[in-house]
């Protein structure tokens, strides 16, 4: 029960798995276009976030007392919000937090999920049963709902957000890696390694782990995009970063009341930045997936 948005959907691979003459080349070229565009978007956004102090003319939480809800123009490129903070500057600084939390959370989820999946898949027996029942409980919820509950219970803060998003995503990785580890376990070279006296840890680390990571590599970038959406969603509901930290979801939330009054600049630009950034991850993930499918053929 993986979230469809998170994992790119089942049967995606069916697309290029079918043996059709001539499609390989064109499909491959499309995959390369996707990867290049995705990587470009992500590079630009990352650079903008890193060099935010050079590109922004205001601080991320600096208040301009003379300009409250000022329309775009003048010294405020994209106007100001209801606190008198500059939207354009906050947009740039927010990228640091959004990208940082999303990537850190997915990295943590991959590590934890992989360890659980490896141990469960390789050892089998009661260890497998116990771990997988736990995974079942986690996956009895739509992922965003689970994130909502965990975030509400843990409370605000960057570290808690990373833990929340990692915890919600880890079960999917555990399941993926477990399936791979189970099939790798049956291969003759594992038997050979065990017979020649390798320890369980040695076999897991040197042989099973590297051979079980293929699906993880494809899913992880897609998952980063999803993590950003989750983070922004939590912040939008007031369960993410604390106000007035510059974060895209929190900025959209702050601009929420302005929308009814027709003031677009407080909430539309942060959402657009978020969309473009997530799209970068999606394009990259889609391209990697298509390429992986083409190779398997």
């Amino acid at each position, binding site marked *: *029960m993986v*979230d*469809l*948005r998170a994992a*790119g*959907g*089942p*049967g*995606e*691979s*069916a*697309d290029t*798995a*079918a*043996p*059709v003459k001539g*499609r390989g080349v*064109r*499909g491959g070229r*499309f995959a390369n276009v996707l990867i290049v565009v995705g990587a470009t978007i992500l590079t630009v956004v990352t650079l903008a976030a890193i060099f935010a102090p050079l590109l922004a003319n205001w601080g991320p939480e600096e208040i301009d007392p003379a300009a409250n809800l000022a329309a775009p123009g003048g010294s405020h490129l994209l106007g100001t919000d209801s606190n008198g903070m500059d939207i354009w500057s906050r947009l740039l600084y927010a990228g640091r937090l959004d990208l940082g939390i999303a990537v850190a959370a997915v990295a943590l989820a991959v590590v934890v999920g992989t360890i659980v999946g490896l141990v469960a898949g390789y050892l089998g027996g009661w260890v497998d049963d116990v771990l997988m*029942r*736990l995974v*079942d*409980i986690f996956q*009895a*919820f*739509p*992922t*965003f*709902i689970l994130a*909502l*509950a965990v975030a509400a*219970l*843990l*409370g605000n803060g960057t570290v808690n957000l990373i833990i929340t998003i990692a915890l919600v995503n880890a079960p999917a990785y555990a399941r993926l890696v477990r399936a791979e580890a189970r099939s790798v376990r049956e291969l003759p070279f594992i038997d050979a390694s065990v017979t020649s006296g390798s320890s369980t840890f040695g076999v897991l680390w040197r042989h099973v782990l590297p051979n079980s990571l293929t699906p993880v590599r494809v899913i992880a970038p897609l998952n980063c995009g999803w993590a950003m*959406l989750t983070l*922004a*969603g939590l912040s*939008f*509901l007031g*369960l993410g970063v604390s106000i007035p930290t510059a974060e895209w*979801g929190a900025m*959209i939330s702050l601009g*929420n009341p302005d*929308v*009814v*009054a*027709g003031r*677009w600049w407080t*909430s*539309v630009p*942060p*959402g657009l930045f*978020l*969309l473009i950034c*997530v799209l970068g*991850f*999606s*394009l990259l993930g*889609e391209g990697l997936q298509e390429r992986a499918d083409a190779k398997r053929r």
Partner: protein
Amino acid sequence: MRILRFVGRRLLQLIPVLLGVVVLTFLLVRVLPGDPIRTILGPNATEEDAAAARERFGLDQPMWKQFLDYLGGLVTGDFGTSIQSGGSVTAEVAVRIGPTLELVVFSVSLALVVAVVLGIWSARRADRVGDHSIRIFALIGNSMPEFWLGLVLILVGYSVLGWFPAPSGRVDPDTNLTPITGADLVDAVLTANWPAFGSAAAHLALPVATLAIVIVAPLLRSVRASALEVLHSEAYVAAGAHGLRPRTLLRGYLTRATMVRVPSLAALVFGTAIGSTVLVEYVYSWQGFGQWALRGLLYRDYPVVQASVVIIALAYVLVFLIADVVHAILDPRVKI
């Protein structure tokens, strides 16, 4: 008969998972910091007031006693008393679930129809311009924050164009709609209240559009993938080689075979929809289940949190079960 056995076996497998959910939420909500009593009493309450309130909600009992009481209530469908409102949680759920179901059912149905039509159209033009634009559209939809999309639709549909009502409330109160199910559109039909029907439909349009756009993107990708799979299958190629008419091919061989995948996709999408509904309800001030559960979580209202978590988990796993059964009925190849 085999189907019944299959359903029975799956239901049995659900019991440990749901029991785990019940135990975990019960424990986590109490172990982690946050006190519902303090939030309802305010900062000026004395220690005696707090103790009295705790006793009223049975929170002074030992943990195991509280848990047994909770389990006993669950069996009879009683979720306890809300600490925040003092009302029966079961009654509050009954009021809140109609508006949310209305939103989710309309959006998921709309998204399914659009996804099947566009997905098959796209697959038949694989790797051509039309196909690529649909795929890009799906990728963009898949990357869009639903709450932001909701705000953009409000900005355009209400603030700028003024075509849709303000994002507050679900029906114009002047239409005097009698609530029956809680789903306003259905209530309007049941009571033959046509002004209310129009008002409810107008209020429903933007939230449904928001949710449907977000859901349609991942669905579209999956439908396209499975349609491509069918197009390249031996059965389809053979049928084409026999010289069947294009219409027969499209309807009987492509659409039907692709539709087999739809139930399981709908189940997956249902989960995405529940998550997104919380955000969409918040944006449109839609007084549904999601808003209620969210407030319960924020105020650490134990009975409300427990009830909403258990109900969502139950609904989610049951939808998957139903999808599997429908799939088994549609597809004779499935062995159950």
